[in-house]
Structure formats: structure tokens, C-alpha cells
């Protein structure tokens, strides 16, 4: 699965790549605007780690834009930041982030959270596929019903015409 890492600090960009590149296909952005362009121009990635403080758009700004657009609304977004007060966490989640990791993070915890994101995305995709096939079945059901209704009405009409003939 593709994973977007948006981080202006080269150190953390490299660290995150090292930690996650065995499990994910990594693409990186060095500022918020580039991150937003990558998100909206592609149907992937469905997973993104966004640093909070970046030149151009901040992580929360990218989050808000992503949530406001149908194409990117379902992207699983993890905000990454040195801020860790309750107010900051609430602000991050309010902007539409799915999860929140503070620096300094532990490698294993970060991996676990990104894996959780992948599971959510995979589940979303399964649900989407299932609801699509459900819609299709329902559509097919409607067609059958319509045929049945038509047949019934024909039958009724036939019966009516017969009974009227007999009654004469």
C-alpha cells in the first residue's frame, strides 16, 4: 500500500522512510502544499503521515482540505508533531486527522499505528466493494420485480378478459 510522508525536516523524513519502507511504498513531500497536491492528484495514497508544522500548508490545513473533498475524504491521516497538549490533540483531531503521533515517537508504536491505518483502509475498501455488489444485487432485484409486476399485470388483464367473456 502506498504511504505519503509529508515532513519538512530531512532527518525525520529519512527516519520515517527507514522505519516504514519494508511494509509500504513510500512517497514523500517536503511541504504541506506538495503533500496536498500529491493527495488530490492521485487516487492513492490512502494512507498519509503529515507533520504539523510545515512551510506552505500545515498538517491540519492539509487535513481539512482532504476531508472537504470527496476524492480524498477517506484518506487515513496520521498527524505527527512535537506538540502534545490535550488542546493540540483535540485541534488535530478536529481538523479531521484519524490518529495522532507525538515526537519523539517509538519506532514500534509508530509502525503499529500505521498498520492500524492500513487495516482501516483495507476494511473501508472491503465494505465499499461489498456495498457495491449489494447495490448491484438490489438493482437486479428491482429488475426482476419489475418483470414480475409486468407479468402479474398481464395475467390479471388476461384473467379479467376471460372472466368477462364467461360472464356474458
Amino acid at each position, binding site marked *: 500500500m502506498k504511504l505519503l510522508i509529508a515532513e519538512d*525536516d*530531512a*532527518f*525525520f*523524513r*529519512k*527516519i520515517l*522512510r*527507514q*522505519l516504514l*519502507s519494508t511494509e509500504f511504498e513510500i512517497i*514523500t513531500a*517536503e511541504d504541506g502544499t506538495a503533500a496536498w497536491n500529491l493527495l488530490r492528484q492521485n487516487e492513492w495514497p490512502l494512507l498519509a503521515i503529515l507533520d504539523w*508544522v510545515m512551510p506552505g500548508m500545515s498538517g491540519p490545513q492539509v487535513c481539512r482540505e482532504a476531508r472537504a473533498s470527496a476524492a480524498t475524504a477517506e484518506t487515513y491521516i496520521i498527524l505527527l508533531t*512535537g506538540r502534545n497538549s490535550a488542546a493540540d490533540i483535540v485541534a488535530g483531531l478536529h481538523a479531521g486527522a484519524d490518529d495522532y503521533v507525538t*515526537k*519523539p*515517537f*517509538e*519506532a*514500534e508504536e509508530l509502525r503499529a499505528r500505521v498498520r492500524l491505518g492500513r487495516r482501516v483502509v483495507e476494511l473501508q475498501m472491503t465494505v465499499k466493494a461489498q456495498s457495491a455488489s449489494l447495490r448491484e444485487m438490489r438493482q437486479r432485484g428491482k429488475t426482476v420485480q419489475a418483470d414480475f409486476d409486468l407479468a402479474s399485470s398481464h395475467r390479471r388483464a388476461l384473467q379479467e378478459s376471460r372472466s368477462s367473456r364467461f360472464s356474458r
Partner: protein
Amino acid sequence: MQDKENPVSPPRPHLLIVLAEDDRSTASRAVAAPTGPMLSGLGHTVALVRTHNQVLEHLGQHPFDLFLVDILMPEMDCISTTVAIRNQEKDAGVHLTIIGMSPYPSQSDRKRCLAAGMDRYISKPRNTDELQTVLLAFLNPDAIQNATRPLGWNRNNILERAGGTEKDLRDMVEVFAQEKPNLMAEVNLALTTGQAELLELTALKLGEELAYVGALELARSARDLAQLGRRRDFPKAAALIRGMQFKLGEIDAIMSRAAL
């Protein structure tokens, strides 16, 4: 952008050196270039001293790997300094490598220096190649102290943070060694050009990196630096950066050694 995956190579050994040398001494300069810049050029961290008291003060504050002394120091008798160091070591049970160097080597000086407790007595290196040869002779891993240094750096914690394997730790140390100079250059640029906002932002980044690699004391200094940037207090910021430089060199040394 695409980061190149670098093959893993052990970080270059990095020594903490107390250097007693008087770059104003014409006797020495006539023969050899100043050693300090050559050592820095080779990537080592150097504390330059001129007096007996400065030497003891530095050694009291940090565990150094090497004491390199020009024996023709105008303000210092290297023999009594060596004796003082050896006396102090008796109680602590440690041994600092002391190398005496002379622009005009003689047999009688050699005897006096070795008798006082120096490990080696050499002709003063005239260029980087000669100096490198001397250090390579010294640089066997057993000779490098593995003592825990007083910077609150805990190898086990950081090994775990990095992912748990030795390779994870090496990778982290290597990335830090690659990226830290760029960030420091940016900090210095912000300072010299008076860009308060850049100083604050870069210092915050530096603080996050230092916290990640476990240099907590330095991370706090970086956060203080960000505050000074916000307040546009450039003189205090400059002083704080000067104070951080040495400890940054030290944390480099500690980590590159710990990751070997």
C-alpha cells in the same frame, strides 16, 4: 523526492581531544601548522587550552579520549600537568591517553615526558597526513573509552526507540550525523542574518531531532534557543549556540561509538 538508500557503513571514529597548543608560538609555527584546525578537519572535537588549569578543568568536566600537548608551551609546563593528571587518575582507576609532541624532538625530552607518565612522545605532525597516521595508530577500538558520558544519553532506551536492532540504531545515528550539520548551518545562517523566525523554526526542529536521538539536555537547550529566536535576542542566542557546539560534538562521539 527520492532519498537514496545508503549502504550501511560504520560512522567514522570521532574523538574528543584536549589540545594544548599555542598557535601564537613562533617556535612551533616555524615547523608545523597548528594542529587544532587539522583535527577539526578530520572530524574530531577539540577543546583548545593554553594553561595547566584549563587542562584540568576540561578533564574534570568531560571524559576525553586524548590529551595532545605541544611540549613547547610558553604558559604551561607539560611535565607537571602530566604528573597532575596521573595522580588524579590513581583514585579514579582510569587512564587518559597523553601524547606529547615536539617541533624539535630530542632524546632527553622523550625520557622526561615518558617518565612523567605520557603514553607517547612524537615529532609534531607537520600536516594532516602525518597527524592522521598518529591518530590511526591510536584509534584502535579498545583504546576508545566506552564510559557512559554525563549527557543523560541511554543506549538501551534509544536502541529500543530506533526499532530494537543494532542496525536500527546504526541507521538512526547515521541519519543524524548526515542531517545535523545542515540544520546547524541553517541555525547559524538564521543567526548571522538576523532572521528571528527562521531561527525559532530551525531551533525547534533541532530540538525535536535531539529529543528523538535521546540527547535530552541538548534538546532543552534547543527549545531555549527557539524562545530566544522568538524574542529576537540574538546575542543570547549566539552565546547559547556556542555553548551547545561542544556538547553536540560530544553527543556525536558518544553515538557513533555506541553504534559501532
